[in-house]
């Protein structure tokens, strides 16, 4: 039945197109750029309104807790650049001096206000598991 075969092919193609569209649109709705501190200064882009992600190291001795340990402030360093970061919430176990962290949030008056803090382990020896931060988002 050649007609039937055609229908199947049309259906498969349609399904693929819809899925692909669905995926790309979905991706667009949750894009978060990964930038460097240098980029924040150098580009003309107005970063103030944008949510973005930063990766770097916690400057030694810069961690300060306040508000009964519920707020933490520290300096994030990337090679020569640095930026103050503020985060509200419980910090992951591996959050400490020199830890490699990834923060997600927005700039506010020169301070990066993070709503998500993840750590990667940069301890003395390579260790293969670190900890996803709290509030990674709701799952269905």
């Amino acid at each position, binding site marked *: *039945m050649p007609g*039937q*075969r055609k*229908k*199947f092919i049309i259906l*498969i193609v349609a*399904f*693929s197109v819809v*899925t*692909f569209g*669905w*995926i*790309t649109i*979905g*991706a667009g*709705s*949750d*894009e*978060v*750029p*990964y*930038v460097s501190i240098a980029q924040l200064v150098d580009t003309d882009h107005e970063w103030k309104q944008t949510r973005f*992600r930063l*990766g770097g190291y916690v400057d030694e001795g810069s961690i300060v*807790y306040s508000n*009964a*340990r*519920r707020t933490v402030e520290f300096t994030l360093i990337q090679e020569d650049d640095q930026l103050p970061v503020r985060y509200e*919430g*419980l*910090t*992951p*176990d*591996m959050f*400490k*001096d020199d830890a*490699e962290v*990834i923060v*997600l949030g927005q700039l506010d008056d020169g301070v990066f206000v993070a709503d998500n803090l*993840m*750590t*990667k*382990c940069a*301890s003395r*020896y*390579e*260790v*293969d*598991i*670190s*900890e*996803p*931060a*709290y*509030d*990674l*988002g*709701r*799952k*269905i």
Partner: protein
Amino acid sequence: MALFGATLIQLAFLLTLSAIGMSAWYFWKQDLRFYVGARRSLIGASLLVIGAALTLIQQLLVGNYALEYVARYSSRTNDGIYKIAGLWAGMEGSLLFWASVLGTYIFLVSYFNRKRNRTLMPIVNIVLGIVMLFFLFIIINFENPFRVLPLGTAIEAQGGTGLNPLLQNWAMLIHPPLLYLGYVGFVVPFAFAVAALVTKRLDATWIRSTRRWTLIPWLFLGAGVILGGRWAYVELGWGGYWAWDPVENASFLPWLTGTAYLHSVIIQEKKNMLKMWNVVLIMITFTLTIFGTYLTRSGILSSVHAFAATDLGIWFFGFVVFIILSCVALLVWRKDELSSQRRLESFTSRESGFLFNNMIFLALAMAILWGTMFPILSEAVRGVQITVGSTYFNRITAPIGMLLLVLVGVGPLLSWRRTSRATLLRNFTWPLAAGTGTMVIAMLLGMRQVYPLIIAGLVAFVLAGILIETVNGIRARRRLAGEGVFLALRSMIDKNRSRYGGYIVHIGILCMFIGFAGKAFSTEQDVSLGQGESEILKGYTFTVDRFYTEEHPSYSAFIVDLAVEKQHRPVTVLRPERRHYTNWEDQPNTEVALFSRPLEDLYAIVGGYDPESDKVLLKIMINPLVQMVWLGGIILILGTLVALLPSRAERKAKEVTA
């Protein structure tokens, strides 16, 4: 011993090389001596690799801290069982572990096919040999686990760093081995598919020969993924079990395509259609397992599973490209043999049900792959690394997951070839009624969220379908064979184990979806409480009774006694801890306090102590229905076992031939 282990690996490399050569020679000249020789060398190589892994375990157990690997991943204070876990805690060890798992599979495949599949086996051996060769090459040249530390190194004297405390958990003991057993195992059906292509034996023989070889890795991989979730839930303390982390995704992807394959092979077995499709699916699945290893091991994606970035990436990438190119070449070479003579006849047939199931699984895999690779793709295209988070994954996968649930229900209700209107009506009326009824009741009870409502309806729809079919089957047997209800059920399942095992797996998946839906109703709260102070959350009163420090041999713990009451009745006392392990003083380790009730989990972690206000910082969560995820996982495993175990008829046949 270090030299011994390294030598074993080098010998295994040489033996594998000769096995590949001999297999190829046999295939060329059909000289049986070379077939036997190849088989023996490959088995020998496998045993040597397993021996090397056992040597490393032995070194970990006796604590030879002169070996760099042993010093890094175990310590005198670790329990024996966690010393063994050191084998897969680091890069070098896990590669060796990988190779030894492959060796085990090779050994078993050779054993079970010693008298069977003589045309396929030489090619199967070549494929298995090449994969083994690649891993041994990497181990020998870049990641030798038997490297000796320079004399007088401090970490040797102090007796090793020890396993990261986060890994010291029962689930972490089994999770990596299970994942590896799953990952590596898909190489077997892949090798058979390649062999079938090369030898033009593209009927269902290779598929029948590998049915169990596919189910076993599929089971291990699924169980490994679920256990990983369990570990994250009880150990990491962020209250969830799945974060769409690249490494999690990497293990989930081959499971998805593998599931698609498990379904589509049924059509080839029954109808001799979709030959090309099945070959492609298993190729994709195998490529994804190697690609997953590449993602995990190369450090190109920033993942919370931060393996050290190494220059291995390029080798793995090269291997992936080699696999893809060879597969494409093979497919082009054999494209004429792969076309089916038969066509799908109707949309409302079980065949097309399976086809749509496949498309949806692939769409799901594509969506997850796309999101995982997005940082790399966007950097290549736009020059900026852009990541997508769990919002993307949840938004994209939820509707695809719902579609899949629909098919789980619809598929089994359709007949082969085409389903007549009368049958459609008969088969669908009750399940549809059950589904809509459940949704209406849930709405009347006040459920308003869209996804949970849909899931509730779909679960009822699928369950009703399975139930009706089972009841009809039992009735028929009772009528024909005059058996009692339970005997009828048993013999019905035994007659068609893959089918009913599949249904049980479906029920497990339903349970898991109910658990996922529960996430929409979870509550969490960060609180600072002093002694005697309390917080009320969803009708539960959480009161800090006291907090104190306890000293243990390998750690010291800060503990909070958190009394929980509901309607003035004590429920439990939660004891979240914050531990500091010896050797890991600057990394506190939160121990989750978890109290599971049938319908909800009470979950608490302690974030710290503030001396100024004399209060402790706590995160309290109430997670409904999480138990259903684990229950679903157990049912899934049981269902797969039902499908795996031989039926009575098969067992009898074996006795006769034996």
